[in-house]
């Protein structure tokens, strides 16, 4: 299934295509046939889905290397043999430095670098770049991440091809390239001024990656890339990543963010995830972070932090859907449609009294099937199960399993609804208990 994005390009039929490694280091001649240097790099025009080349960087001399930039319209032709310019050698301005340049180039920013493949959800290293010639310019079509690309770079392509052809003329190796379309590729070049990464793939692409995978991709990056990428993302993606990485990485990100960013981030993280994180921080830092957060939310968080981590109070989240007794089913459904919740509450709706006491519980299915004009308590479950703030993980798990609930409400000693515990919070606790056994199961499944 993952191989779908690796379009199987038949090489012999693809004359319009050229690999960047086939152009690299090829001689460059000026319009009089005088050797000017060799092809070094391509400068790309930004702001396009498939970037086009806009200038050529050539190099001459050894060991004192000098570089010159030539605009694309001044190039007569460029192919696997050589490049020919429309201008004279004398008009080229060679200089020693080219590292300071801010533009986006193939050799420095993509080739051999790590990039994020948003289709296959992983961090990959680019072995070669597949270019398509369009209207005289070159366009990035794919990146090559396969072993053949690597062998081509080493200069062994012909000999290895020969050996493989000798042994097995129908070998898959000869016809398949592991290419990933550029539209799925997010480069990780950090802008030296703003210290951020320009997001080329639409953030939607990243948003489509399951949160846990996004977290894994993120952990594969080095710390500078992590920080730069994080700063460049939108809030939704930031929240998704932050709640799916380990504490050590969370903490190093927090150190890099300014106060308003921290506040914005933590205001949008579900309370159970936020307390998970805050409770591991040293108390001084917890205080500082809590001060940054919106007043109402931080009060709730500090209350949650007071409960022990493995009690119902410590596990619960304070995001749930509750309606006062007497609300009509129709009104309740409308409010559910309109409201935006931080986490997806597990399809349960609670009915409370005016003093916030828990009266009953129902679920979406019952609500939808009920008469819209009835008061909401009419469709409640016949009996309401709940746990107390100090109930243990085991009690909670037992109840949830017994009654097949995805979420269970938590009340205090006065029967006031405090929060809910969802099945995923319980699962992660149980997995920690059953860790060794689980690992064994995982290995058996994989083999």
């Amino acid at each position: 299934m993952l191989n779908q994005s690796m379009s199987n390009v038949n090489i012999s039929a693809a004359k319009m295509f050229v690999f960047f490694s086939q152009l690299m280091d090829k001689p460059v001649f000026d319009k009089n046939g005088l050797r000017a240097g060799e092809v070094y790099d391509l400068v790309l025009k930004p702001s396009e889905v498939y970037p086009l080349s806009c200038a050529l960087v050539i190099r001459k001399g050894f060991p004192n290397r000098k570089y010159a930039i030539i605009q694309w319209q001044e190039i007569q032709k460029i192919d696997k043999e050589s490049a020919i310019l429309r201008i004279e050698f004398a008009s080229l301005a060679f200089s020693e430095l080219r590292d300071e340049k801010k533009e986006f180039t193939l050799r420095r920013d993509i080739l051999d670098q790590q990039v994020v493949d948003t289709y296959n959800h992983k961090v990959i290293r680019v072995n070669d770049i597949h270019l398509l010639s369009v209207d005289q310019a070159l366009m990035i079509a794919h990146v090559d991440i396969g072993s053949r690309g690597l062998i081509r770079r080493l200069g062994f392509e012909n000999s290895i091809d020969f050996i493989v052809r000798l042994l097995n003329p129908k070998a898959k190796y000869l016809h398949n390239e592991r290419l990933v379309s550029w539209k799925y590729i997010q480069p990780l070049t950090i802008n030296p001024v703003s210290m951020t990464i320009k997001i080329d793939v639409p953030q939607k692409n990243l948003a489509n990656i399951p949160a846990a995978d996004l977290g894994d991709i993120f952990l594969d990056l080095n710390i500078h890339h992590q920080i730069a990428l994080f700063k460049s993302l939108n809030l939704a993606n930031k929240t998704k990543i932050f709640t799916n990485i380990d504490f050590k990485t969370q903490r190093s990100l927090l150190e890099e963010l300014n106060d308003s960013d921290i506040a914005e981030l933590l205001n949008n993280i579900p309370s159970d995830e936020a307390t998970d994180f805050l409770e591991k921080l040293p108390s001084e830092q917890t205080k500082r972070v809590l001060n940054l957060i919106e007043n109402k939310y931080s009060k709730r968080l500090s209350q949650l932090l007071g409960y022990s981590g493995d009690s119902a109070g410590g596990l619960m989240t304070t995001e749930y859907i509750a309606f006062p007794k007497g609300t009509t089913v129709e009104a309740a459904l409308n409010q559910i449609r309109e409201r935006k919740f931080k986490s997806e509450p597990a399809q349960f709706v609670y009915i409370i009294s005016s003093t916030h006491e828990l009266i009953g519980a129902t679920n979406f299915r019952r609500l939808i099937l009920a008469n819209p004009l009835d008061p909401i308590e009419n469709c409640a479950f016949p009996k309401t199960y709940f746990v107390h703030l100090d109930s243990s993980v085991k009690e909670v798990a037992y109840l949830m399993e017994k009654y097949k609930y995805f979420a269970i409400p938590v009340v205090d000693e006065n029967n006031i609804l405090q929060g809910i515990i969802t099945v995923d919070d319980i699962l992660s606790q149980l997995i920690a208990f059953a860790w060794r056994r689980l690992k064994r199961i995982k290995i058996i499944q994989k083999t």
Partner: protein
Amino acid sequence: MKKLKGFWVKILIFLSVMGPGIITANVDNDAGGITTYSVAGAHFGYALIWSFIPIIIALVIIQEMCSRMAVVTGKGLADLIREEFGAKVAFYAMVILIFSNIFNTISEFAGIAASAELFGISKYILVPACALFVWWLIVKGTYKSVEKVFLVACLFYVSYIVSGFLSKPDWKTVAQSSISPSFQFDKAYILMLIGVIGTTIAPWMQFYQQSSVVEKGIKIENYKYSRLDVVIGSFIVNIIAIFIVIVCANTLFTHGIRIESAQDAALALRPLAGKYCFYLFAFGLLNASIFSACILPLSTAYSVCEGMGWEVGVNRTFKEAPQFYSLYTAIIVIGAAVILIPNVKLIPIMLLSQATNGILLPFVLIFMLLLVNNKRLMGKYVNSRFYNICAVLIIASMILLSLILCVTAFVK
């Protein structure tokens, strides 16, 4: 009061940053290391002891460059070589790394075989058993928890320091010979010198050290603590090495005993352990060998796969990371298989592997020097001029020594 608090905060930061330097140092004192130092002391007395002062300086300088690169760029050495010099150069650098590390792994298994001899166990049992154990530790991911056991067992080296004092060396001669360089244009001497340098400053160490600093995620503000870690590590290696040389010079060289087998090397611990010296030495050698046999194949596989852009990691399955596991397994299998050849000579293998390190070292250092002076990567943290002069001197002298070795090999 406030000052005191600041002091404790500093200690705490140091403890959190500490590790890479000290662990690398202990892995550095592997089977090849112990053997090389022992032979250096037993065959040449104090004649090589002067080399440790320049070696300490060189080791600190080189390891410091590694951790600085790790902290500033957040990338491993293999990644940097690939990203800055391209696929071709990275490929050949990785070939050098694999080549030298296969040799090193062979020498670790030679260490295991040698301790098997001392324990009176057949090497045909202990070597495959250890190879399987090492492979299993990493693949099952239990390595991290066992690492501390290895580190504690490294206290074995203290026995060399105690033996050193018990053997009552003439400290004046030791001090004199450690500050007055002497050089012999003799093939055995030069090979020994290259071996001593190569075992102390091995190519794999630079890759390993840099990756472990990256993994620790040390911030540039705390870099000075990381530097302290490097300095402490370097001193630990060298102090132990010096004591091994002193002990062997004092117990073996003076009696004209040449080290032909592990048994001879174990005699050096006699002042401390008496007739139990064989067991003590065998235990230390076994621990050192297994410790390094875990780290060497793993760090090679990591570096190579990172540099080549292959999937990396012990938390992936074989199907997800085939190159990683094949490489890791192949290095262990080759390492163990060579030692299982009947009648293979263990001590020369260990010495030769360390000399290979010494010969290959300058190539790795040249890459490091180019990278650490790259302004785009390192910004204001590029090498100072003093550093560069030292590094160039180290590279030049290593190349010169290798050349002299070639010449003497042909002259004789």
